[in-house]
């Protein structure tokens, strides 16, 4: 049996190359912040990031100079505002932004998962987004002769995700809102997953309905408690709303963003050291409560 358990540092060094296409899992929930921190820390560059709705973890990767392009349906701080970092990177020519829609991105990842070149759908036939995203072209249905748009497959080089738990072999159990995580993982060539805890294989066998990815698909397994902080993880911890609320003002100007990145990532040797530097009791207060 290959030992897949490793540190985030080893996983990112081994399985993410510059110029890779990277899918980031988690949708408002279970966002793999710890792995993203490590990508920034290792100064990976020219990554092509793909996602339906890109949350503020993308700000870390873009501010850290890791991405040269982003294909997504949406980007920003959900329910709060714009991404100043992505807007600046696009305006300065440092980031190519390919805007699409969330469903088109799901279809393209699903095509990648199915191993087919495209999936037809009527979306993106009209309006100013039509035909502008790469990977969408008009076709005629061979059966009905009706017009559709072909949404071409995306097969990312690597997916990064966070989940509640796994056994040491990498059978991954994730529950709560999954969003686009499965489509993205199953379309990808490699999967790096961080989990809150390692459980026994017996525990997995007693709850196979919670397993979302089988061990043979997992390349690297990282044990990282609070690995989705500041997002939330169902049954484990709540979102740090103050972090999301203050993010806009901390990243509004380029200089502020730089010091935010220093304090969030570069000042810390790893994610645990970042967590330790958070105010006392904060993580305790965020612990999941069944209320």
């Amino acid at each position, binding site marked *: 049996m290959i030992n897949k358990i490793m540190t985030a540092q080893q996983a990112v060094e081994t399985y993410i190359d510059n110029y890779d296409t990277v899918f980031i899992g988690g949708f408002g929930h279970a966002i793999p912040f710890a792995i993203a921190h490590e990508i920034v820390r290792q100064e990976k560059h020219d990554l092509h990031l793909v996602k339906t709705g890109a949350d503020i973890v993308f700000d870390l990767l873009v501010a850290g100079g890791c991405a040269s392009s982003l294909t997504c349906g949406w980007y*920003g701080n*959900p329910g709060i505002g714009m991404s100043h970092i992505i807007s600046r990177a696009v305006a300065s020519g440092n980031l190519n932004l390919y805007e699409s829609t969330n*469903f088109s991105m799901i279809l393209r990842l699903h095509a990648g998962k199915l191993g087919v070149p495209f999936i037809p759908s009527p979306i993106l036939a*009209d309006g*100013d*987004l039509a035909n502008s995203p790469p990977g969408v072209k008009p076709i005629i249905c061979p059966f009905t002769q009706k017009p559709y748009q072909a949404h071409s497959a995306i097969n990312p080089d690597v997916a990064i995700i966070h989940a509640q738990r796994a056994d040491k072999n990498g059978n991954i159990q994730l529950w709560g*809102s999954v969003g686009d995580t*499965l489509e993205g993982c199953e379309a990808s060539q490699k999967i790096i997953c961080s989990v809150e805890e390692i459980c026994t294989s017996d525990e997995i066998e007693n709850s196979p309905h919670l397993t979302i990815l089988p061990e043979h698909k997992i390349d690297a397994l990282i044990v990282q408690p609070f690995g989705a902080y500041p997002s939330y993880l169902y049954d484990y911890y709540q979102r740090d709303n103050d972090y999301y609320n203050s993010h806009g003002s901390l990243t509004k100007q380029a200089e502020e963003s730089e010091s935010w990145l220093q304090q969030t990532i570069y000042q810390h040797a790893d994610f645990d050291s970042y967590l330790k530097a958070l105010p006392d009791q904060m993580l305790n207060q965020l612990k999941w409560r069944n209320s």
Partner: protein
Amino acid sequence: MNNTSTPTNGNISSISAEILAQARAAFMAATEIQDNQTLFVGIGLPCLVAHLAQFNASPNCHLVFESGLMEVMCKTQPLSTASENIARNAKMHGSMLDVFSMLQRGEIDIGLLSAAQIDENGHLNSSKLVTKSGKTVALPGSGGAHDISVLANKVIVVMPSDPRRFVKKVDFITSPNNPYANRGGVAGVAMPDAFFTFVGGKPVLQKIYSDRIAEEINNSLDWDSHISPTLEIISPPPNNIIISAEKFLTQY
């Protein structure tokens, strides 16, 4: 749970004009929802519409969010379509593919959307604004809005009062009001005073609150609109609805 501002504890006179306008717009939109319908709910004001529908005239409507959450009781305002508060009040945690498949199969009765701009053709913009000086201001983008506008059986838009958002022609058509197959496209837009439908690509004032005057509302926008011969005059939201809306908007 955090508060963004202090609730007024039921004192209606201290509710801000902005919240009052949002409550009136959302209540107006909710009058378009029938009980037992399935709604695909966008973030922002659409959530207040869903909340008011669910806790008043349409208690059995089924809420679906793009993250994959289904059969949600929308008790408090979610900041994202996967927020903890709606995930905890969902009967099913599905995937995005699950819910967008329902949308594409024609199983969604009403898509509830908002936008930065709406024009007199019912096209919506959530991608970018062009200022008078010609500068482009980026917005977060479609998300699922384009998909909902094309694929829902009917789309109801809800907008705050700012008349600058009601334009002759949107700066960018993110979500086109061009119905696909037999789907309905954008049926209408609710605002704090009224509800406009789109008939033959033109806006028609269809409903107003009884405390407003139809001609004034019709002339208040930069739209080539007219008043429907079957104009409906409805009562504005009662105090308990406004208080419930205020609570929803200030707590999450």
